């Protein structure tokens, strides 16, 4: 039974692992930290998996566990070695439609997002993942009105960071 559970979990995680990678991308800024957070989120997902009832989508459930791990539970582990930080965009330069200005703009944008605090990043993440305010508020435990207000503030903050 346990093997079966493990198997179905790994299969699901493998399929949806991009969600975890995206959380890691916002909350870390080097490859080692990225992998370390990925590892921790995987452990937390696996622990919570037996209680996952399937009444919500696996991916939705992953958003919550992933963000909660990044915002609340995660502690930088000792096994992490500090390597040179990279810009989130720098390692994907080999994209086919390489456009210098667009690439440059994205680089600045990702850099600006990295300057936001943990909660602001969570809002940005859920927004980028196309979640509505109802889901954003339910994930963070704030009211829908406050989620909207905060989102507007985050947008303003990003503008200020980009155009000081």
């Amino acid at each position, binding site marked *: 039974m346990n093997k079966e559970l493990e198997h179905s979990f790994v299969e699901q995680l493998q399929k949806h692992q991009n969600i975890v990678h995206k959380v890691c991308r916002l909350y870390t800024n080097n490859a080692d930290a990225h992998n370390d957070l990925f*590892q921790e989120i995987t*452990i937390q997902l696996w622990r919570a998996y037996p209680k996952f009832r399937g009444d919500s989508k696996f991916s939705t459930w992953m958003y919550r566990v992933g963000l909660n791990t990044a915002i609340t539970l995660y502690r930088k582990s000792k096994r992490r070695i500090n390597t040179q930080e990279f810009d989130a965009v720098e390692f*994907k330069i080999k994209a086919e439609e390489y456009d210098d200005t667009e690439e440059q703009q994205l680089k600045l944008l990702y850099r600006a997002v990295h300057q936001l605090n943990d909660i602001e990043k969570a809002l940005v993440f859920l927004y980028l993942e196309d979640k509505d305010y109802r889901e954003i508020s339910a994930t963070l435990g704030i009211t829908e009105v406050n989620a909207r207000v905060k989102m507007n503030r985050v947008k303003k903050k990003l503008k200020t960071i980009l155009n000081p």
Partner: protein
Amino acid sequence: MDELEILKKDWDKDRANFKSFSGEEIYPMLQRKSSSIVKTLFYISLGELVFWLLASILPYFLSSTIREKLEVSYENPWFIAVNIFSYAVILTFIYLLFKSYKTISITDNAKRLMEGILKTRKVIKYYVIFNLTMIFLSVPVSFYMEYQDNPDFHQMISEASTAQMFMVYAVMVVVAAIFLLIVWLFYRLIYGILLKRLNKNYDELKKLEV
């Protein structure tokens, strides 16, 4: 165009070269140890329980003088009552700790998860305050008991001048205060480091509600 909209376009493209983990790579991850703060908090609370239990039990086994004194003290019903009381408190704390750990759920919303962790930390804090208070109270009580039961000590105190007595009290208060301060700072440091990020994020969420 809105900055986030530009980002969103790129985000949806999924172009980033994340290292996609294979099933074979994910399986061993499930066996690794978590480094979450809840786990650390759990070990700290376990350590506290063991430490304070040992601190109250070990002297009995390690020193024959203390054992003799304690055996005499056990004839005093008050002493037995205090002991029963402190064990009851320890059991209550174990129960409360267990209960609050059970309420911590990663699938709760972020705010409730943080509150669960902070509540657990509070239980541990109260346990520490309880122990420190007991230690603080035990100083004058044992002083009084020694005065009652030990004739040499009784005589020494009776013969002491007011200035000498004042000195004894002053030293007692200062030593106790320094001890408490060190323990308190130690806890502030441990929890300060451990929960710094959580506190910051919790404050940020709370701020939204004002």
